[in-house]
């Protein structure tokens, strides 16, 4: 149906119904002649509302559908196109990226403002001060390159007046868009109206989200635009790394993250005091269960069962937390890093594998390539 609007045809609107140009061939002409008696053709706009075919300026138009019904049901009629138009509308008001929800739900806030400061160098020289959230955002801004476009988006994000206006209209039950007037119109004009009408419906459906956005953005109204730009960028990309600490948002759910810290290169010794240089890896914890430290890369270590990626590190007396707080995230990462870097005891050869070959017939991982 929307394709008909996109075709730029001449259309007629009458009593909320849309009439399309009637295809004309000899059979149709014969039918039309039986429908349109000369006396009924007088005063074409008088009393033809219920008619399937109307004549206007010597052209025939056939009744299509109610325009408001198309708007109301467009989501079911053409889900793909509706989603496209919905995204377009949400993007216009910076509602697209669920930025507000991300700011509200707190996982990202916890990572940025409570976990990250533990693992990154915050102070210059020898001073040791706790940084405010603003100072942390300044620090992030210095360490990552936020593309210019995000500064423009930040200005739009902070302009909450249009959203307030929409809310006001919805609360007053004012129609978000006046229906187009009766008569001849072009498909292009109607298409624009239809687009705006779908946008109005989207906004009406998203009233809760808009109310939440206004609330959140009011909280952020005193934040510097460059900080908003930084947050928008992080929310968009879902990942960041500073000083060996970072996080990656999982694709499946935008609110779930892998939070990691690089181990750096380190040396472990075997029973015979020979050194093995272990390469850097990322020790991570997910924001979903199980809250256990694991190594993101394909990696081998006495505390990892196999030589592959995503392996949990085996730990002694470790009870994974029931829920993740900043303190617990830090704790889990610390346990994992400590285990890899300092946990192996060459005398006891603890873990799944020993660095030196035991010459027993048990399949094990070989570390000879790490020997230095």
């Amino acid at each position: 149906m929307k394709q008909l609007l996109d075709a730029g045809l001449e259309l007629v609107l009458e009593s909320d119904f849309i009439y399309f140009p009637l295809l004309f061939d000899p059979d149709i002409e014969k039918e039309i002649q039986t429908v349109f008696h000369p006396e009924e053709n007088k005063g074409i706009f008088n009393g033809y509302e219920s008619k399937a075919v109307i004549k206007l300026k010597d052209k025939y138009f056939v009744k299509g559908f109610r325009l408001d019904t198309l708007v109301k049901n467009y989501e079911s009629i053409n889900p793909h196109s509706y989603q496209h138009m919905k995204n377009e509308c949400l993007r216009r008001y910076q509602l697209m990226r669920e930025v507000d929800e991300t700011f509200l739900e707190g996982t990202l806030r916890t990572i940025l403002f409570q976990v990250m400061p533990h693992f990154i160098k915050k102070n210059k020289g020898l001073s040791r001060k706790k940084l405010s959230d603003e100072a942390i955002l300044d620090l992030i801004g210095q360490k990552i390159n936020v593309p210019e476009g995000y500064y423009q988006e930040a200005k739009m994000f902070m302009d909450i007046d249009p959203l307030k206006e929409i809310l006001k209209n919805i609360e007053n039950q004012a129609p978000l868009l006046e229906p187009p007037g009766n008569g001849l119109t072009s498909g292009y004009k109607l298409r624009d109206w239809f687009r705006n009408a779908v946008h109005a419906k989207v906004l009406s459906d998203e009233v809760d989200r808009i109310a939440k956005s206004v609330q959140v953005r009011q909280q952020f109204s005193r934040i510097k635009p460059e900080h908003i730009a930084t947050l928008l960028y992080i929310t968009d990309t879902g990942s960041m790394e500073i000083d060996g600490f970072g996080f990656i948002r999982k694709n499946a759910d935008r609110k779930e993250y892998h939070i990691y810290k690089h181990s750096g290169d380190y040396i472990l010794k075997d029973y015979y005091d020979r050194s093995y240089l272990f390469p850097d890896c990322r020790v991570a914890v997910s924001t979903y269960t199980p809250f256990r430290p694991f190594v993101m890369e394909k990696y081998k270590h006495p505390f990892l069962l196999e030589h592959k990626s995503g392996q949990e590190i085996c730990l002694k007396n470790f009870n994974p937390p029931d829920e993740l707080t900043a303190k617990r995230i830090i704790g889990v990462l610390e346990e994992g890093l400590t285990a890899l870097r300092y946990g192996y005891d060459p005398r006891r050869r603890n873990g799944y594998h020993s660095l030196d070959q035991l010459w027993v017939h048990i399949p094990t991982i070989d570390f000879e390539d790490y020997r230095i």
Partner: protein
Amino acid sequence: MLETDLKKELQLDEAEKLLPLVLEIIPGHAAEGLIDIYEPGSYAAKSLKKLCDKTLNKKNLSIEEQLIVEDIKRQLDGGKLLSRGQEIEGTALEYAVSEQTEAGEKYLYIPIRAIKPQEGGILD
């Protein structure tokens, strides 16, 4: 830091041994720790362990420093102090490296990590 790097960096000349010493005790794998500065001559004869104890028993700490000390003590409950991957023993000069501030003032620096052991074990 790797052992090979360590040997290179720990070779201080005589003049450097007269520099002030900055000790930083870092809880676990944090990026920053508790800083203490020892004047030249006040640390040379003392063991690094004693200097650490002195630093950890410092009074008049700021709230931030108190939180760091709490964190360090939590790590040291069954844990140990490590510098450059080794348990600390001997004097400060054995672990110090020469650094300088942005203003160009030289000093000796020792980062020490308080690490609570995690031996690894069997995955539950």
